[in-house]
């Protein structure tokens, strides 16, 4: 394992109620870079990213085996509290989901839960600045977060996630519910954020993965002919420039060229 890696995944297997969803995934996530996970729908991208912060635990019948090392510590070891794990890892979801509270209270939620003792005002401002939202909301921090536009709400969710100072941000299709301009702003924000955070992004938009990421992982489905069971496997994981100019696996080549979806 690379000492620098933020995450080190070995032999990850996920099952939902006994049916396999993901098999034998090995990968390393490096610090201060953007890693994209691409693949056709149903290949397990969301399942994979949710393994990084044990969000799969919330799904009844989910079983995860294998190792997921976060800075060398297996987050799936016996006795590890998933709540503690999630405090170190931020997550942003596909549809912006701010709480029906004020903008300030949204950003302050995480720190308050974690019994933050310092200057909350300063932390909220810093988080909103890093999420490129401060200038737009500094005069209406007490207003409801639901009054913001979709793109602003998503940046608020990013500010909320980074307020607890994680070193990784997981993003599950963060821009797919946004219009093109808002999408570009999120992508620009990601380039800024990667100076401080490792970012893992799931996207079904290949051009976005090509534009934004440093490394790309391609997941694809395998099918058991007899039982018609389907599960995801990691086909190729490499520098983004390689994946999009000369991938090693034909399946990767066909997928990125759009020969199948």
């Amino acid at each position, binding site marked *: 394992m690379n000492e620098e890696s933020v995450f080190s995944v070995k032999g990850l297997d996920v099952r939902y109620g006994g049916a396999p969803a993901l098999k034998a995934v090995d990968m390393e996530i490096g610090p201060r870079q953007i890693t994209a996970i691409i693949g056709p729908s149903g290949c397990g991208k969301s399942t994979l990213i949710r393994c990084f912060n044990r969000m799969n635990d919330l799904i009844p019948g989910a079983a995860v085996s294998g190792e997921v090392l976060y800075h060398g510590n297996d987050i799936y070891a016996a006795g590890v509290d998933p709540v503690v794990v999630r405090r170190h890892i931020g997550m942003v979801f596909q549809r912006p989901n701010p709480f029906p509270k004020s903008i300030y209270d949204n950003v302050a939620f995480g720190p308050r839960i974690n019994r933050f003792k310092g200057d909350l005002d300063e932390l909220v401002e810093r988080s909103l600045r890093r999420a490129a939202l401060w200038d737009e909301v500094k005069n209406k921090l007490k207003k409801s977060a639901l009054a913001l536009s979709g793109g602003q709400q998503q940046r608020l969710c990013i500010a909320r996630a980074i307020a607890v100072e994680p070193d990784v941000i997981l993003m599950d299709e963060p821009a797919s519910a946004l219009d093109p301009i808002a999408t570009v702003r999120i992508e620009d924000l990601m380039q800024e954020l990667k100076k401080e955070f490792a970012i893992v992004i799931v996207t079904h938009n290949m051009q976005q993965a090509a534009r934004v990421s440093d490394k790309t992982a391609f997941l694809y489905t395998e099918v058991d002919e007899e039982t018609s069971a389907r599960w995801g496997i990691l086909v190729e994981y490499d520098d983004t420039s390689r994946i999009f100019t000369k991938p090693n696996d034909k399946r*990767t080549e066909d997928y990125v060229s759009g020969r199948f979806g």
Partner: protein
Amino acid sequence: MRDTFHNELERLDQDVLRMGAMVEAAIEGAILSLAEGDIERACAIMEADDAIDALFIDMEKRALAMLAQQQPVAGDLRLIVAILRVLTDLERAGDLAYNVAKITCKDLEIVKLKRVSILIYELGHASRRLFTKALDVWATKDATMAAEMDQLDDEIDHLYQDLVKELFLLRDETSFEVAMNLVLVGRYFERIADHAVNLAERLRYFTTGDEAHLG
């Protein structure tokens, strides 16, 4: 999926061969018209260059449109980039054949200089053969054939050097103008061969994606 795009890409690929065939005919015609002193044929070749240029412009436009609108990646991207570079090589080769035909129109009576004319025709034919081979390499997308081209190009370089030596030896028997024009013709054939080698190199990069095969 993306059938329209991939069909369009394949048509562009085939059109490279079509343009190649036109240039090949121009080269062959240039050699023949030089050999027989056939000024009419030479003029026909010069006019035909317009068609080659028109096809070049059309194909460039199509390639650019595909880049902008289809965002090709991986193999598709390497193919379009290869096609764009190969187009310039073909167009230049066409221009060189045009230049040879133009010199023929000056009615040089090189037939009288036996040694020289043999060398020139050998040079021309070798160059044309190399060019044809390059087109075969493109048609079959066979990178191994491309590796053989260097050797043939060396032979052409030798022939060119022999030509220059021969012209120098005969400097008292011919006029300066004739000698200069013959050197130019030799140069043009030699450069056609270089473009053919470039074409093959481009093909190798497309198939292997290995930067070592560039340039």
